[in-house]
């Protein structure tokens, strides 16, 4: 089976600065992959490369033929002068039937929101509507760029459970970026740690214990990481050693199937 997305040696610039310097990644059908990385690591740029908004300076991007992408942007500012009901928003850019709109909203957990104005929605409702719009395209790949920004922790946990359910129902692959490591990592099949290039990748457990990951997320996320491990590894008191040699000895797990 061919990969949905394959990047090899991808390089991209943002405002003159090279933020992606040789990214290799592969995304298979139906898998949930999360990209983590520090600020400025190029996470959003990588998403924008994949949707075609940022041109590559070098390397190669291969998409499966006829790939349909559902994109949920990091933020969507709707100008207050633009009147836009949820129903109308769902018909952009392709007009859809009322039934299809209702079904997508239902899938995304936002049933009955059709007649509300986008500007009047709460943060959680807004994200669900964005997700519903992305689903209307019947995507093979759902891309979520920090989709839970502005949601509280229970809210984002619910959102990620929803994503997992959607993957099961619709069979689409999911590629997401997030800062909420412990929540997201629990919902992922695979995690890529990005810092200009892929530092390490593998199962959430593997990445969480990789020295490259620790070097990037060392002190700030101890609590979250410990919580994550507590819930999923039953391994207490984790992550106390500070490993700051972020050398480029790449640590790939399960690369043989790539």
């Amino acid at each position, binding site marked *: 089976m061919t990969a949905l997305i394959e990047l090899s040696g991808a390089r991209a610039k943002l405002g003159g600065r090279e933020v992606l310097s040789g990214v290799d990644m592969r995304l298979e059908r139906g898998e949930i992959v999360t990209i983590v990385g520090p600020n400025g690591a190029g996470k959003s740029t990588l998403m924008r490369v994949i949707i*075609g908004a940022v041109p590559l300076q070098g390397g190669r991007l291969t998409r499966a033929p006829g790939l349909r992408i559902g994109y949920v942007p990091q933020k969507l500012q709707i*100008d207050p002068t633009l009147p836009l*009901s949820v129903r*109308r928003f769902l018909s*952009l850019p392709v007009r859809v039937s009322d039934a299809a709109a209702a079904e997508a909203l239902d899938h995304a957990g936002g049933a009955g929101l059709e007649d509300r104005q986008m500007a009047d929605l709460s943060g959680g409702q807004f994200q669900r509507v964005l997700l519903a719009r992305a689903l209307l395209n019947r995507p093979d790949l759902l891309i979520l760029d920090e989709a839970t920004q502005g949601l509280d922790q229970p809210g984002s946990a619910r959102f990620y459970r929803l994503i997992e359910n959607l993957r099961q129902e619709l069979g689409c692959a999911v590629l997401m970026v997030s800062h909420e490591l412990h929540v997201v990592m629990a919902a992922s099949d695979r995690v890529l740690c990005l810092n200009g290039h892929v530092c390490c990748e593998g199962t959430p457990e593997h990445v969480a214990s990789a020295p490259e990951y620790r070097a990037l997320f060392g002190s700030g996320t101890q609590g979250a990481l410990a919580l994550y491990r507590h819930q999923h590894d039953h391994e207490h008191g984790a992550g106390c050693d500070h490993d700051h040699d972020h050398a480029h000895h790449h640590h790939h797990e399960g690369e043989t199937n790539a």
Partner: protein
Amino acid sequence: MLDDFLVRAALAGLGVGLAAAPLGCLVVWRRMAYFGDATAHAAILGVALSLAFDMSIFTGVLVVALSMALLVSTLSGRGYAMDTLLGVMAHSAIAFGLVAVSFVSGVRIDLMAYLFGDILAVGKSDLVVIWGGAALVLGLLCWRWQALLTATLNPDLARASGIDPERERLVLTLALALVVAVAIKVVGTLLIAAMLLIPAAAARPFARTPEAMALIAAVFGAVSALGGLQASLWFDTPTGPSVVCLAALIFLAASLVDVLRRAAQGGRQAK
């Protein structure tokens, strides 16, 4: 019927009002108000060039307005904030335009007509140009509407759906230049932006979808054009400015209605 100058004036105003208002909605949503201004002000330079090279005013204005819009698009995001850049371009264009006109002998008298419009002097061939241009603009907007709206919401959202936001901006730029070129005779370069913005702004409180706003704006634009013409006859005032004054009064009334409605809603909710 077309032999009556008042009928011709009314038709000209109607054409401009109908085409400018929906386009104005997009300009408002995309926060391009000054972009419209700069394009319109460049038109006076177009007038000067048309007179100097003996072309039709429509062609000269269209070419200059389009070049101006493209120049601003290209220069934006290269060091200057957009509003600074537009301020520089808009006022330079009008200054250069006025200087250029002074080189062309024998047109000093006509200048006011291009700055403020001369709707009562619209001839049959002008009407063809105005309605042809208006139809072209409306057709262009209808054709690209979904893509324009998506790109207006968010460029990345458009990209992910296979829409090129740059191309949509070009469509909008072209439509703007067309409206400027057809509206110069009706309201003049100084007030074209008003016909774009004011009806759209007045329509906002009454609309729940983008299409409704465009439609209401078109109605307000048409009412302003016809009512302004009538008012200018009653009060013996300059026609172009009268049209814009009426649009401004409609905006004021719309805002008042909106404030009262919100107050009433607030009162109900408080009980």
